[in-house]
């Protein structure tokens, strides 16, 4: 069992869990700040960034693409602010306009450029290549202790782990100012909390999580994980700390259940092929949200 599971299923499962966590944790704060669409926006604008990064450098190696993605995220955040301020359009609509436009531009760029020989296409951008993140050097559970094999772990796994640690450090260290400024921005300012830079830092950390997760698992999971686990967690509790805990649990549960269902579900139903893990993970997270919305202990409507 381990002989097959460790090289083929363990890395994608782990990467899926890490990506889900890295997006869901900051998602709690974005959701409460009514900025949940930021994750959606970033994961879309990453596409033109990656294409431009590829066109400029001519390589499909990771760093130029990550830099391009990060630059595109920064441009998008600036554009959203610009459309919001100058155009006097509400923030949600401003995000919608900016990310669809940039994503569309990314699709055009992709079609026109010669990227057919590299692994870069719209399909990949949407639902990633989770199933292909395998660890061929592993022979079984013992490989987890074998340095020679560990070197060949998919680089996405290490990258995602580093990003998750960054996200957790950010939220852990700045928990109090984040919570206070999310609840009562004016009061936070009078305490001397730098509300502006803190909000920007939250968006940047979310962008880093989105870019890293996008690279590993595609934008569908990113969008779903920023919103579904935190929104479902809100239905479970009236305490912020507990909500963040539930969101982490829901994120991991979505990743594991979704991955297993995608791989084996169709077989159980008599079909021969497995389905996209990313699509299934996102679907499961949506189902968890639906169940929490129906049966969660604090699912009350917005009481007047």
């Amino acid at each position, binding site marked *: 069992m381990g002989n097959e599971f460790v090289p083929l299923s363990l890395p994608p499962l782990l990467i899926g869990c890490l990506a889900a966590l890295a997006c869901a944790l900051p998602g709690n704060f974005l959701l409460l700040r009514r900025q949940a669409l930021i994750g959606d926006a970033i994961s879309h604008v990453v596409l033109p960034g990656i294409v431009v990064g590829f066109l400029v450098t001519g390589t499909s190696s990771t760093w130029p693409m990550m830099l391009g993605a990060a630059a595109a995220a920064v441009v998008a955040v600036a554009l959203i602010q610009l459309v919001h301020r100058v155009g006097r359009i509400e923030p949600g609509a401003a995000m919608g306009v900016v990310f669809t436009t940039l994503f569309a531009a990314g699709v055009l760029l992709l079609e026109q450029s010669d990227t057919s020989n590299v692994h870069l296409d719209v399909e990949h951008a949407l639902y990633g290549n989770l199933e292909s993140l395998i660890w061929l050097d592993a022979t079984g559970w013992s490989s987890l202790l074998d340095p020679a094999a560990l070197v060949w772990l998919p680089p996405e796994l290490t990258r995602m782990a580093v990003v998750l640690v960054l996200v957790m450090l950010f939220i852990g260290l700045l928990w109090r100012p984040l919570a206070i400024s999310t609840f009562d921005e004016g009061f936070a300012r009078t305490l001397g909390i730098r509300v502006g830079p803190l909000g920007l830092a939250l968006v940047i950390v979310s962008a880093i999580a989105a870019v890293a997760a996008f690279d590993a698992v595609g934008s569908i999971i990113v969008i779903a994980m920023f919103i579904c686990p935190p929104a479902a967690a809100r239905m479970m509790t009236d305490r*912020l700390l507990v909500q963040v805990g539930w969101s982490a649990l829901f994120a991991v549960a979505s990743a594991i259940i979704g991955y297993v269902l995608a791989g084996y579900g169709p077989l159980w139903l008599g079909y021969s092929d497995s389905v996209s893990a990313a699509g299934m993970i996102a679907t499961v997270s949506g189902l968890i949200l639906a169940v929490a919305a129906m049966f969660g202990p604090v699912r009350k409507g917005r009481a007047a």
Partner: protein
Amino acid sequence: MNDLSQTAPLKVRGLTVSYGATPAVFSADITVQPGAMTAIIGPNGAGKSTLLKAVLGIIPRLSGQVEVYGESFDSQRARVAYVPQRASVDWDFPTRVIDVVQMGLYRQLGLLGRVRGQHRALAQECLSRVGMSDFAARQIGQLSGGQQQRVFLARALAQGADLYLLDEPFAGVDAATEKAIIEVLKSLKAEGKTILAVHHDLSTVPDYFDHVFIINKTPVAEGTVQEAFTQDALQRAYGGRLASGLLDQLFPVANPAPPASFGAGPA
């Protein structure tokens, strides 16, 4: 030198704030007296809340200096507590009453300081001062408007400040809450603390406050209630927007006939 009795808790000079092209507050000067309860009054849209927020740096000011106890506000933050308007936050936020009160301890706790027994006891004591100790574990969305206002006041008490700035603390609260809040404010005053509150109910000004600052975009009058809370100053600030009965009620003996009202001449 006794700092509290000598230096003005709050001194504002030439404060101008603008939303877009039109100034919301123009060239306001205030000197808040130590140990006093001062009301900021003026008609709707006169810039009362704007003034308070600009003083606290919540909204940017175009010009003007703010001194708190003779120093920059930034260096004196620990001595200033703020009670925002109740409607300024989302009460559906996932947090309990006691957590909100503990936000007032942020400057004491810092980023990672542990919440110890003494902090919990202090927060609980602040809640009981506003008559809310039974509600510590409630989610804030389950409270009535008046109870929410009291929680905000408890949070300000937890800050342990010398100067309390309140934005419409009596707006939309029940009579019991109004009484509870004014009692807490008066006890703060008795401890030598200074209170500055945006207030909209003219009829309670003489009962609740000892100083007033009257503003209608530009300052109109400033001083003790006796000096500054006059019919003339109110007419200048409010123009025709004052209910005619209110002035009669406020100034029954000194001025039997408001000059602007008809049919009040000698019979």
